[in-house]
C-alpha cells in the first residue's frame, strides 16, 4: 500500500522568522491510520498541517498527497478535496447561519449537483451525529456540536484525510469526548485517515501512532505505548505523559513490575491488579 501522505525533507520559514518553522521533516502516513501529533506551542505542528492541503507550500522539499505534488497549482482543488482541515476555533469556520447550509458550502463550491449535495450533507451530518440539528443556528450550539458541524463541513467534500488542528483546545470535557470519538469513528468505520494535533495526552493515547514535534522536526515517532514509555524524553520536550504512565512509573520506581504499555485507565487498572497478584 502506498502512503496517502508523503512528506519529504520539508522545510519552511515564515517571512521575518529567524528560524525555520519546519526543518527537514520526513513523514509517510498510511491510509486509514489514526495519527496523533504532539509538541509544545511553536514546535511546527500547525505549519506541518497547513502543508498537507496546500495552504502553505514547501520552501524546500516536497509534499505529496496521494501522489499529487502540492506545489503543482493544477492539483490544488483535488488536494483540498482529499484533505479536509478543521481548526481550533469552531466559531471561525462556520460560514452560514443554518447548520445544513454550512455543511453544503464545500460541495457547492465544487459545483456538485444539488441532489448529490443534499445526499452528502445529510450523510455527513449523520456521521458526526448532528443530523437532528441540521436546521439549527450554529451560534446556539455547544462548542463540541459546532466543531462536529465543522467536521461535517469538510466530510461533505468526501475527503480521504482529516487533519484536525487542536480541535478540542477550546472545548469542555464533554465537547472533547464528542469530537475525538467522532474522529475516531470516522477512522475506524469509514477508513478515513485522521491526523489529530493535540495537547491532551489522553486523546493521543487512542491513536495508532504518535508523532512528537520539536523545533520544526519530528523527534519521536511510534506507537503510543512506545512513545509514552519514554517519559523522561517527553518531559524534556516540555510535554507531559498521560496520568496512567505517570502512575506506572511511580509504582515501578518503588519496585513493582507493571508493564508500561497500559495507557487507558482500564488497561492500567488491569495491569496493576495483575502485578499485585
Amino acid at each position, binding site marked *: 500500500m502506498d502512503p496517502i501522505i508523503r512528506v519529504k525533507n520539508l522545510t519552511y520559514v515564515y517571512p521575518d522568522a529567524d528560524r525555520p518553522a519546519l526543518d527537514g521533516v520526513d513523514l509517510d502516513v498510511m491510509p486509514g491510520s489514526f495519527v496523533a501529533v504532539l509538541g509544545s506551542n511553536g514546535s511546527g505542528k500547525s505549519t506541518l498541517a497547513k502543508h498537507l*492541503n496546500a*495552504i502553505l507550500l514547501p520552501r524546500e522539499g516536497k509534499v505529496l498527497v496521494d501522489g499529487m505534488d502540492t506545489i503543482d497549482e493544477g492539483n490544488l*482543488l483535488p488536494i*483540498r*478535496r482529499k484533505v*479536509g*482541515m478543521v*481548526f481550533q*476555533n469552531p*466559531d*471561525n*469556520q*462556520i*460560514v*452560514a*447561519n*443554518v447548520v*445544513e*447550509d454550512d455543511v*453544503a*458550502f*464545500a*460541495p*457547492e*463550491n*465544487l*459545483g*456538485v*449537483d*444539488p441532489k448529490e*449535495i*443534499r445526499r452528502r*450533507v445529510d450523510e455527513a451530518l449523520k456521521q458526526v451525529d448532528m443530523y437532528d440539528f441540521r436546521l439549527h*443556528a*450554529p*451560534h446556539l450550539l455547544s462548542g463540541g456540536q459546532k466543531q462536529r458541524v*465543522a467536521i461535517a*463541513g*469538510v466530510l461533505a*467534500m468526501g475527503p480521504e484525510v482529516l487533519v484536525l488542528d487542536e480541535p478540542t483546545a477550546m472545548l469542555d470535557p464533554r465537547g472533547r469526548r464528542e469530537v475525538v470519538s467522532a474522529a475516531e469513528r470516522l477512522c475506524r468505520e469509514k477508513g478515513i485517515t485522521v491526523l489529530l494535533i493535540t495537547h491532551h495526552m489522553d486523546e493521543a493515547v487512542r491513536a495508532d501512532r504518535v508523532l512528537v514535534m520539536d523545533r520544526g522536526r519530528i523527534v519521536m515517532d511510534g506507537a503510543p505505548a512506545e512513545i509514552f514509555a519514554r517519559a523522561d524524553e517527553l518531559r524534556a520536550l516540555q510535554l507531559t505523559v498521560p496520568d496512567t504512565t505517570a502512575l506506572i512509573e511511580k509504582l515501578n520506581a518503588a519496585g513493582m513490575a507493571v508493564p508500561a504499555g497500559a495507557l487507558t485507565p482500564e488497561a492500567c487498572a488491569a495491569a496493576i491488579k495483575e502485578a499485585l497478584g
Partner: protein
Amino acid sequence: MLKDITLGQYFPGDTVVHRLDPRTKLILTVVYIAALFLVNTWGGYALVIAALAAVTAVAHIKPRAMLRGLKPLVFIIVFTGLLNLFFTRGDDVLFQWRFIHITYTGLNRAVSMVLRVMLLVSGTFLLTYTTSPLAITDGLERLLSPLNKLHVPVYELSLMMCIALRFIPTLIEETDRIMSAQKARGADLETGTLPERAKALLPLLIPLFISAFRRADELALAMECRCYNGGQGRTRMKELRMAGRDAVAFILGGLLVAGILVLRRLGI
C-alpha cells in the same frame, strides 16, 4: 446585557406566506410600497389595512408582534403626525388658540401620513418576519443576478451579507465579553463628559476590531480549505423554485394594486 436583546425579526413558521419564494415576497414588498404612495383615499387605506391584516393572519403573526415592531419608530411616527397637524395651512380651521391653529386639511394629512408610515413599516416587517435573512439574501442574489453581466459581483456581495448575518450574534457575544473584562478592570463606560466617554470606548473598540480581523482571517482560511473559489461554477443545494402559490400571490398583489387604483379614481 446585550445578549438579552432578542435578535433577528424572523419568526420561523410553515405557513403559505413563509413558504413563498423569497423573490416573490421581495417583489411584492416593493410593489406594495409603491402602491402605498398611490393611496389617497380612506377607502384605499381601508383596503391596504385589510390586505395587510389578512396576510398577517395567514402567516400566523400575532398583531402584538406587529405593534412591537413599530415601537422603536413611535417617535418618528408621532413627529410626522404633529408636524403635519400643526404646520399645514388652510382655510378650514378646526381649532385655534394663540399661535396654534389646526386645520381640517392638516388633520387629514397628519392621519394619512401616520397611516402611511405605519403601513410601510408593517409591510416590510411582514417580509422579515416570514423570511429568514438567508432566504432574503438568496432571493436578492437571484433577482440581481442579471447584474453579473455588468461585472457586479452579486454572488460575492450576497456571501458577504450571509457571513455578516452569521457573525452578528458571535460579535455581540464578543462585545459583551470584552465589555465585562474591561469593566472588571474598572472601566467606566457610563459616566463622564461626551469626549471622556468616547475615549472610554477605546478599550472596547480596539480589542473588538482586532478580534474581528482575526476571525476574518481564520474564516478566510477555513473557506479556502473548503475549496472556496469565488462564485464561478458554484451550485446550490437549495434551488429556488416558483410554485403555484407564487402565481396566486402575484395575482392577489395585482388585485390589490388594481383596487387601490379604482378607489383612487372613484375618490372613495
